[in-house]
């Protein structure tokens, strides 16, 4: 930049910026932080953005940008705390002796500023006494590096009401990937923010790229049924929130319903679609009913057939308990899985079901056979478990079939069988595997696929998550293309990728965290305590977002990206306020995100939501 240009820019700055005070010169200023003593008529609040011009001999003018991290005030001239009584005017001390207002002192207000940027990049401390301006307009964007972001996606509003941006390059895998959301539970902020982010993504197709409309989001509803109203307008959504959304450049609408087999919402361009899937109800006989209580239409039940279960290696996700890995169960499981794959053959007239038959026992390599009288037709997980038992725990009391068990201790084999039997009951995994038409989840049916597994046993939840993550990851591995993006929203990440122990699910999440970036599989992980999540998963998240934090949690190393002042404040954040950390901006930024237009709980669903949306329109 030439000197004249620079001068012109500075002249412009002063027009658009309001002076708030001067750099404090008691103690040292530094290239990282400084303090501002405020002018009488000015104020600075925490999160406000400021700038200072510094003349550097031989270089020229530097502009230092910063964010206010603390606001302070004191009486200058008071030496003792009780001096305050003597300075302030409304106090009479005991016994009638001593009154207020006798001691002169100056009220001084100041602010601590953390430097976000020095432009040009030369880390020189601002001069004491230098004038400090509020950063506005283009200067504000510079303070937040928005001018250097190639693809700035607005994700909320700063304290000044202006948008705060995330550089999409650091989410979609271009330069970095994944997002980690932390915060205490109960305020529903984490998943709401995740959906808010997804909604903004789909509202900005020009940023996402040409494949934007094919972006797919997979999310699991693991508690309550709070994610089953993404297509229902919310009673909590008001004009103010709508205005905030428009300020972010996105028209606030709920998602459009697109569950296969249901009456779809009227098509609306630019509105992302949602499909709901739920595990089938247990003990329902042949009826296939989604296991949810709060909505009946627009939701489809899913399960896998034994054929799919075997073809897609889902057996491994039956053994996701951390103790399983220590017991050598995976050795048996791998062996069994290979056997099943080798032997399973379709049964004519029983779609989805299989029988196990040696390949050389099939005529001419038939793809489907008639079942024989002595043969067990595997229609359920229970059948499968029984059939495996025949080989691993023969009724004759013989040793297990070596081809099925491999060289493991007898105890391991029985542990395997015990777990498999337990898992195949209807209340656990049993209901997720049955023959018949394929009812697997079609992730392509809608932008967002919500998979409701809140009524499943822990074991079954991990199974579903594992199976679907694997499917997602494998699809992308096969295409080898980063685009279109495949996003997975996973709450309670610590349950699936705990810090301690091994499980196939954890390994897959680590794999996604490490390789997913280049494959376009992006994890939006949420957890109450980041410290209980596998570090490999967390460390790979470029974008970090935090809502209200438990005090002890905020002191952990996982939150080292936050400033001490931000940590202190993270204990007090209200729902809707988040702290954002991203590689492109060296300090955490506090942002607000508006209420979302869709209901986040059953009691938020607007009463007229089921009515014809076009009613009243002529």
């Amino acid at each position, binding site marked *: 930049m030439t000197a004249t240009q620079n001068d012109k820019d500075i002249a412009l700055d002063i027009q658009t910026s309001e002076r708030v005070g001067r750099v404090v010169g008691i103690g040292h200023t530094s290239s990282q932080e400084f303090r501002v003593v405020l002018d009488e008529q000015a104020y600075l609040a925490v999160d406000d953005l400021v700038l200072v011009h510094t003349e550097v001999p031989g270089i020229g003018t530097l502009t230092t940008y910063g964010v206010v991290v603390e606001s302070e005030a004191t009486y200058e001239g008071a030496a003792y705390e*009780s001096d305050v009584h*003597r300075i*302030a005017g409304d106090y009479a001390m005991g016994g009638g*002796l*001593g009154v207020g207002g*006798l001691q002169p002192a100056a009220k001084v207000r100041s602010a601590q500023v953390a430097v976000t940027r020095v432009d040009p990049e030369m880390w020189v401390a601002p001069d004491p006494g230098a004038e400090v301006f509020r950063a506005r307009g283009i200067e504000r964007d510079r303070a937040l590096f928005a001018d250097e972001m190639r693809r700035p996606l607005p994700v909320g509003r700063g304290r000044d009401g202006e948008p705060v941006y995330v550089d999409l390059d650091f989410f979609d895998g271009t330069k970095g990937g994944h997002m980690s959301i932390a915060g205490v539970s109960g305020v529903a902020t984490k998943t709401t923010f995740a959906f808010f982010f997804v909604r903004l993504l789909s509202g900005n197709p020009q940023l996402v790229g040409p494949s934007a409309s094919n972006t797919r989001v997979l999310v699991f509803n693991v508690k309550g049924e709070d994610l089953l109203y993404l297509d229902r307008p919310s009673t909590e959504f008001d004009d103010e929130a709508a205005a905030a959304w428009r300020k972010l450049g996105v028209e606030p609408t709920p998602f459009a319903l697109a569950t296969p087999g249901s009456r779809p919402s009227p098509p609306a361009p630019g509105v992302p679609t949602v499909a709901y899937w739920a595990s089938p109800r247990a003990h329902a006989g042949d009826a296939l009913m989604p296991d949810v209580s709060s909505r009946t239409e627009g939701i489809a039940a899913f399960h896998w057939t034994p054929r799919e279960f075997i073809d897609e290696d889902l057996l491994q996700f039956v053994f996701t308990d951390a103790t399983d890995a220590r017991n050598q169960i995976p050795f048996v499981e791998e062996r069994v899985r290979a056997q099943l794959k080798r032997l399973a053959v379709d049964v004519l007239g029983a779609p989805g079901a299989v029988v196990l038959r040696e390949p050389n026992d099939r005529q001419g390599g038939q793809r489907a056979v008639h079942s024989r009288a002595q043969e067990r037709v595997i229609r359920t997980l229970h059948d499968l478990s029984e059939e495996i038992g025949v080989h691993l725990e023969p009724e004759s009391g013989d040793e297990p079939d070596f081809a099925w068990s491999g060289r493991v201790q007898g105890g391991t084999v029985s542990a395997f069988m015990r777990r498999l039997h337990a898992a195949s009951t209807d209340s656990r995994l049993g209901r997720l595997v049955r023959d018949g038409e394929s009812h697997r989840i079609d992730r392509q049916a809608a932008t967002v696929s919500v998979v409701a597994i809140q009524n499943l046993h822990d074991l079954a939840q991990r199974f579903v998550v594992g199976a679907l993550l694997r499917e997602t990851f494998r699809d992308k591995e096969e295409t080898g293309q980063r685009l279109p993006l495949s996003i997975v929203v996973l709450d309670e990440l610590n349950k699936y990728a705990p810090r301690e122990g091994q499980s196939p699910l954890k390994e897959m999440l680590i794999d996604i965290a490490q390789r997913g970036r280049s494959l376009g599989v992006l994890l939006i992980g949420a957890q109450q305590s980041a410290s209980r999540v596998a570090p490999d998963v967390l460390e790979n998240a470029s974008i970090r977002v935090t809502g209200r934090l438990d005090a002890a949690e905020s002191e952990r190393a996982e939150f080292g990206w936050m400033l001490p002042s931000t940590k202190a404040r993270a204990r007090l954040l209200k729902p809707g306020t988040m702290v954002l950390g991203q590689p492109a901006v060296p300090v955490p930024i506090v942002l607000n995100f508006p209420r979302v237009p869709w209901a986040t709980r059953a009691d938020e669903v607007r009463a007229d939501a089921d009515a014809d949306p076009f009613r009243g329109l002529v």
Partner: protein
Amino acid sequence: MARLYVEDWSPEYGAPFESDPDTLPSEVVVDTAVEVRGAWEPLPGRDDGVRHVAFVDGVQRLEARLTLDDPDQGPLPGICAAYAIGASVWDRDAGASTFAQVSVHRLAIFGESAAPEFPVVPGLDYRVESCTARDLPSFQAMLGGRRAQRETRLVEAMADTDCFVVKDGRIDDTGPLHAVGYIKSHNRTYLEPPHSRVIAAIRAGQRTPIFEVHEKFSRFSWYIRLADMPYGHSWSGIARIEASASLGIDRARVIADRTAALLPLAAMPLHLDARAPQNLIPIAALEKELRRWLGDEGLVRRALRMAIHGAPAGVTA
């Protein structure tokens, strides 16, 4: 051509000196019957609701020793000194105090009436003064005199703004009527028994009757007690107030009552200051502020050396 030198700090410069010596008792005549004839009793103070009270004070400092080396007359002593004066104005309705009229003055005083050209010291405006004597006490007396003149002018200015003025130290005869001097050290008593016994008898908020002191000029005076001090001797917490006798006894009584009632309010809590309670809160704060206005001593000496020697401290010419 005489050359000027600035020299290191010498021990006596740091030592406090009394700029307010009380005159000896033999020189004064005291009239104890101006307010109360006959036996004295403690009198209660009364707050008449005066709105603005201005406390006026000054501080001074010796900053360097000068030597004017004249080839013919030999070395001549001098000093650089500074003083600051100002007021702390208590607005009783607003319940707030502010500093007012703070000013800083600097003097270069030379002995034996010498008045050499003094170099320009950036940021420090020294005025050259000549003193006929050549000893330090005389220089200090001259400094004190200049400061007293300024303080008197400030007392006048504050009184003109409708303030009741309490000046730290004695008043002189040119002072205005609406001002009192506040004397916290008692080198002697103006009163003889039995009147002097009343001083021990007054409690906080009370005063002695007014007596008149005839010195170079006549002034009214009275004692007040600022605080009843635990474990205090009979004179602890006692201050003496004086006002011009030209006030007339009726107006003097109103002012005396006012000081007896008001000044204990301004007394420093005992645990905060070794000079409590006599060191009044506004005056302590004002002195602190004035010392701040005098600036950093080290920087002042450095500037002097730069101006006079052309080299900072520690550099030998």
